């Protein structure tokens, strides 16, 4: 510390050297040499090369014209439903294919021509433009602030507080009308997500055959999809109902069922579970016969159907709801009630 106090920095040799260097900066080895001289292209020198470029551009533009004519011809000539084999694309609609190629070529050639023209025949001399600061000069800024102050003062906005406050109030309230109008976008949730179409006594209808399911139809290793009796594909709310009521049915040897309640709610090892994944609601459709695991193909949540359909892998948060089933007087499978918990994805009110 003391040595520094004795000799002022600027007198040290190192500082002297630097100062000396600063003078020499005029011949900075890294100095900007400025824009390099323009190098002429062959088209700039040789008129024959330029002519060649001109012909190339004209050829591309002509090709585009030809392609457009071919487009119109294809549109008229090819029927909309004609399928042909074109290697390596396979079986394609000849209309679609020819329209696409001709239009594509017509457009591409215009582009290629224009770019070739720009690159070979238009001047390629680089020039420099000045930039100007975006910020306003202090004078301009001062003038603007002054104008604003005058304008604000003339309005009395700051002075007449009553006007200001009521105006803010009015502007803040008026959008509420818009918000209120949005209310009828949909009904309130109420208990809608807690119930499905299943009721005691509703028969299980096979989705494929539209016939009531009988226990003997369900063999070990098969996966069957069912819907409640009375639901028709043509009915107006079919999509809404099936989104909650879709059911999958498998038969498991009763001694392989690990969950006690599952066994009770089954019919001789036939178990019925909601098909709607408890993650975000995809229909589960992959079944592994040996392990009785089902997998949702959307996000790979995996459930063990022999153990209360608990989650064994993936992002689902809880087990699939089970539907309690039995057999009615006619020997068909029937529901013994609705699901005892909401099906599908979890939500705040689910509990």
């Amino acid at each position: 510390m003391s040595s520094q106090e004795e000799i002022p920095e600027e007198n040290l040799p190192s500082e002297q050297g630097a100062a000396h260097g600063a003078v020499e900066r005029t011949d900075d080895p890294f100095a900007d040499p400025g824009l390099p001289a323009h190098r002429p292209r062959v088209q700039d020198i040789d008129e024959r090369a330029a002519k060649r470029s001109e012909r190339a551009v004209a050829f591309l533009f002509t090709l585009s014209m030809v392609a457009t004519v071919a487009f119109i011809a294809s549109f008229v000539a090819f029927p909309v439903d004609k399928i042909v084999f074109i290697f390596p694309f396979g079986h394609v609609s000849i209309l679609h294919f020819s329209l696409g190629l001709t239009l594509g070529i017509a457009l591409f050639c215009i582009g290629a021509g224009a770019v070739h023209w720009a690159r070979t025949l238009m001047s390629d001399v680089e020039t420099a433009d000045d930039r100007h600061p975006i910020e306003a000069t202090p004078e301009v800024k001062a003038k603007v602030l002054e104008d604003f102050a005058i304008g604000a003062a003339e309005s009395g906005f700051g002075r007449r507080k009553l006007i200001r406050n009521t105006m803010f109030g009015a502007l803040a309230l008026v959008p509420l009308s818009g918000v209120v109008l949005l209310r009828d976008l949909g009904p309130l949730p109420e208990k809608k997500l807690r119930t499905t179409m299943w009721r005691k006594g509703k028969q299980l209808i096979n989705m494929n055959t539209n016939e009531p399911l009988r226990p003997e139809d369900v063999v070990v290793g098969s996966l069957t999809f069912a819907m409640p009796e009375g639901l028709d594909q043509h009915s107006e709310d079919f999509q809404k109902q099936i989104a909650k009521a879709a059911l999958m049915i498998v038969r498991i040897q009763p001694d392989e069922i690990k969950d006690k309640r599952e066994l009770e709610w089954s019919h001789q090892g036939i178990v019925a579970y909601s098909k709607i994944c408890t993650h975000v609601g995809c229909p589960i459709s992959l079944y592994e016969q040996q392990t009785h695991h089902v997998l949702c193909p959307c996000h790979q949540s995996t459930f063990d159907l022999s153990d209360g359909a608990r989650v064994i892998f993936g992002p689902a948060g809880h087990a699939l709801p089970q539907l309690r089933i039995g057999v009615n007087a006619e020997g068909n499978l029937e529901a013994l009630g609705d699901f005892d918990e909401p099906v599908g994805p979890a939500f705040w009110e689910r509990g």
Partner: protein
Amino acid sequence: MSTADDKNRKAPAGERVADWADGRLGIYGLAKANMRKIFPDHWSFMLGEIALYSFIIIILTGVYLTLFFHPSMNEVEYHGGYVPLQGVMMSEAFASTLDISFDVRGGLLIRQIHHWAALIFLAAMLVHMMRVFFTGAFRKPREINWLFGFLLFVLGMFTGFTGYSLPDDLLSGTGVRFMQGAVLSVPVVGTYLSMFLFGGEFPGGDFVARFYSVHILLLPGIMLGLVVAHLILVFYHKHTQFAGPGRTNRNVVGMPLLPVYMAKAGGFFFLVFGLIVIVSAIATINPIWSIGPYRPDQVSTGAQPDWYMGFSEGLIRVMPGWEINFAGHTLVLGVFIPLIIFPLVLVAIAVYPFVESWVTGDKREHHILDRPRNAPTRTAFGVAWLTWYFVLLVGGGNDLWATHFHLSINAITWFVRVAFFAGPVIAFIVTKRICLGLQRRDAEKVLHGRESGVIKRLPHGEFVEVHTPLEQGDLHKLTAHEQYKPAEIGPTVDENGVERKVSPGEKLRAKLSEGYYGEGSQIPKPTAEEYKEITSGHGHH
């Protein structure tokens, strides 16, 4: 000031039209400023153009599609030209999409162009955004334009989502169901939001019509405004350029708008359009006829969203299924957390310019682009973000990875869970190292010249490789970048021994600044003295 002579001269028709317009719009003034405006040239500057042109193509083809599409969820029995689906119940939306594909001549082509252009639009925006990011083109005065671009990307994602959901096919319907399940997970208001969005229980009969107005009017309207604003700002700020001989922060070097840039950019529009049309002709995308109409109880395997939604798919797939039940309520963290991270992933990159400008404290305008290596921390952050994004994309396609590469889906999921946290960190460290290595190489090149490949044998038998010195332009280019010094807090005790309060923000800033520009975060560029000493003769190397 028109003289009698002027009046007597009969102006050509074009000039008379221009005069007429000028008298009402002032076009001569506009043209004076812009007709010969200079645009710098670099291949990476065309990425934004691809995005712009695909946006125009989407609008053109989209208008055509609205002429034939019926945004209705009324169930009808199909009796159109596609035989395998005849007699099947489907929504009018799906049926009219089939009609566009099979009964309207050229309808399939336009549909395919629309979809392909949408995929390319989003991809071009992302790559363009990365170009802007890695070259530091977002710095003052262009921060607002960065935000406009970011908003375009995000709105583009949602326009794409609402668009591919319109045909009401099995694949997109599954995506909408996913979205509805995610909305349900929102605490307190989730069920209400879902009911209001779908006009009741899922799927209801409203969402196609609602998505339609959002897809063709609301979002594209906003986007069109943003695109125009984005372009006006590009013109107003004048384009950035890379450092090089004759290029400074105060000029812009390149070719004039008329004719070169106009021909190149205009031509490029046709090139992009032409290529997209050809791709649409030969590569089928979204074949809704083989996917089938939506049914909430059916699904196909390998269901994937369009690529730009893939990272959200990854989030939802790899998140553990946490659910907390308390007091009769359920907190669906397994879905809600991904729903929260989804915007955060995007916001992380959007706010970066503001973080960097706060760390540097630099208030100057920047028109010279950085080479990514010369901003190692920024580059490393960008690569880390991209790694994050692509790890999630992998997660979004975990089933495809499993089936295509015969891997265990559980292993892939666990890999993504770990890589979600570790991947960006590793990418950050590796990228920074690579940047520093490249900086060293630049310094080496400046000081010793380029390796010529010529081996010389000296009189005493030693072999040396001859290095050719760089040209002046290259010397300037490799040393033109500016190197920040880390910001210091300065003495916390003044000369009178009074302690100065240092806010936590200030401390954080100094820490970050040290990390950005401190030792080990940049290689000091060669100084003139070093260069002179080496080139002055004594000592070859």
